[in-house]
């Protein structure tokens, strides 16, 4: 009994909202008013953040390495685009959910392939599925528009009230609200007993199954949920840019996604959000220095991060904020720490 109550009190303590987290979201909201001329790039960051959140769910919590997460992003993007283009569902919010569900179904079906085998097989299978979908989208170019992408998508106002404007203001708030709601859901999921069991699986699948965790079923469940998140991110992409082209499935998208998550740190949900901000800023910076060869610098960042060690970098980065929050809110109120550093 005591062990069980220990676990639950630990989980409840982890699930409590920290001051730093509240500050984070207030900061995110205030960005809308601080930089009113940069809605488009901020929307871009929010979409990427949501997409990375999705990868964090499977990689950071369940330990599934995926090189083809763009598959779900792409399916969500094309679903939202096709729904809007043919006027099947005109209401963006419902279309968003439907696109997410389509990706979710695909995630459920492919999860059976992914949970088999070791890391390497998983890498290959996820990569293969993404490439397969890209080839399919190219093959059926009469539906997807081929390399030109879907043309002439016109979005209806959200809930019939808020029309998408030229400056991306509506799109930004729409994305922010979607991200926040899905973040709350993800937070609930990872702090639930279900989330705890996922961590057990990540740390040691054999031991997890020995204490009675149904490993495969849990992995299928989280993979399906992550696919839903990625689908929503893809649908947001189409809805806010009125565009869907073949590159939504591109390998670079999946690889960049990994970089984003690794920059932010895995296994504490905020990693994706922080990583997305840092990544987009880096990208802007590199693109202004060397417009054509920014790929080189992104690659260098990856190499250096791995060589120095991801955990070490995150400790350095979090040292400052942790110090401040300790001074302000007392010892216990440290910033979220990446999973690998957590005691």
């Amino acid at each position, binding site marked *: 009994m005591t062990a069980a109550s220990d676990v639950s009190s630990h989980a409840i303590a982890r699930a409590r909202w920290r001051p730093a987290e509240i500050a984070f979201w207030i900061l995110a909201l205030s960005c809308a008013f601080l930089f009113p001329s940069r809605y488009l790039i901020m929307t871009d960051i929010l979409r990427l953040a949501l997409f990375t959140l999705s990868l964090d769910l499977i990689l950071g919590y369940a330990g599934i390495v995926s090189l083809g997460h763009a598959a779900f992003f792409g399916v969500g993007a094309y679903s939202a685009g096709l729904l809007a283009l043919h006027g099947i569902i005109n209401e963006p919010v419902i279309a968003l959910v439907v696109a997410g569900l389509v990706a979710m179904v695909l995630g459920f079906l492919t999860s059976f392939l992914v949970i088999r085998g070791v890391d390497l*097989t998983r890498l290959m299978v996820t990569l293969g599925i993404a490439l397969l979908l890209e080839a*399919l989208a190219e093959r059926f170019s009469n539906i997807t528009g081929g390399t030109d992408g879907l043309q002439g998508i016109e979005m209806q106002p959200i809930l019939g009230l808020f029309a998408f404007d030229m400056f991306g203001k509506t799109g930004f708030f729409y994305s922010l609200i979607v991200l926040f709601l899905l973040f709350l859901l993800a937070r609930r999921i990872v702090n639930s007993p279900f989330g705890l069991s996922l961590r057990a699986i990540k740390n040691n699948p054999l031991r997890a199954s020995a204490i009675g965790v149904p490993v495969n079923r849990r992995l299928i469940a989280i993979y399906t949920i992550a696919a839903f998140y990625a689908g929503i991110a893809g649908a947001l992409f189409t809805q806010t840019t009125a565009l869907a082209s073949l590159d939504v499935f591109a*390998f670079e998208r999946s*690889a960049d996604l990994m970089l984003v998550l690794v920059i932010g740190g895995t296994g504490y949900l905020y990693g994706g959000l922080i990583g997305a901000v840092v990544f987009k800023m880096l990208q802007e910076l590199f693109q202004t220095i060397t417009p054509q060869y920014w*790929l*080189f610098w992104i*690659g260098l*960042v990856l190499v250096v991060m*791995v060589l120095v060690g*991801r955990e070490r970098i995150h400790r350095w980065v979090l040292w400052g904020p942790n110090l401040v929050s300790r001074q302000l809110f007392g010892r216990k109120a440290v910033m979220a720490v990446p999973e690998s550093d957590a005691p």
Partner: protein
Amino acid sequence: MTTLFTILFDGVAYGMLLFVLACGLAVTLGLMNFVNLAHGAFAMTGGYICAVLVNSSGWPFFAALPLAFVTAALIGVALERTLYRHLYTRSHLDQVLFTIGLTFMSVAAVDYIMGSSRIFIKLPAALEGQFDFFGVGIGRYRLMIIVICGLLTVALQLILAKTRFGSRLRAAVDDPRAASGLGINVPQVFAFTFAFGCGLAGLGGALSAEILGLDPYFPLKFMIYFLIVVTVGGSSSITGPFLASLLLGIGDVAGKYYVPKMGPFVIYTIMIVILIWRPNGLFGRAAAR
């Protein structure tokens, strides 16, 4: 009937080429359990070295080929000693991130130095064109590829199976701890093997410029093909990847000829099905390490 033979011939040439390109990866990934997605970058290096030597410096094609091998091998051993070595024990995620980073860097660097357009190597006149063999059109260049790659395959098989170094390598792969206990210098064996694999990739890159096309995005475009060869072929011997590359080569050429619209769809489907059916590859060992 003759088209069938031409397809078979082209497919075999393509498959042989893939094997030379990927067999270094079969060792690092299959045997040393290191996910090296940057393998294509070594192939690209070899290809560009050969192109520069032949086109700009006027070297004969056959003299440039060994140099492509040597340069790629030297770069390989330098990287292995300085960077890769530290990552053997790290998680697959770290290895993937690191090698993707290297690939991105190589793509951008080659783009910067050589420009982004596709590059061609001037071939000696003897290798151009094709001749008829009982009505089947045989490309001279492809015939040369089959000869070179066939010889290399036989040599590799002999080295692995018959020489002292081959048995050291097999021992080091099977159980590094026991092997080093027996006095085998495991890191040295791995470094040498890694360099040799990179050299073969460089040679393959130089040979493939004519058939696969050489541009800065080569490592990304063909990464999946190399991985297919290794994962489908399994890692127990060199025959597995060899048969897998022949299968892949013939399948790809035939697929492009008979169902051009389906493109790479066929290959990916076959790969996924095989991986589901036998996660350790068609010719793999039962126990994954």
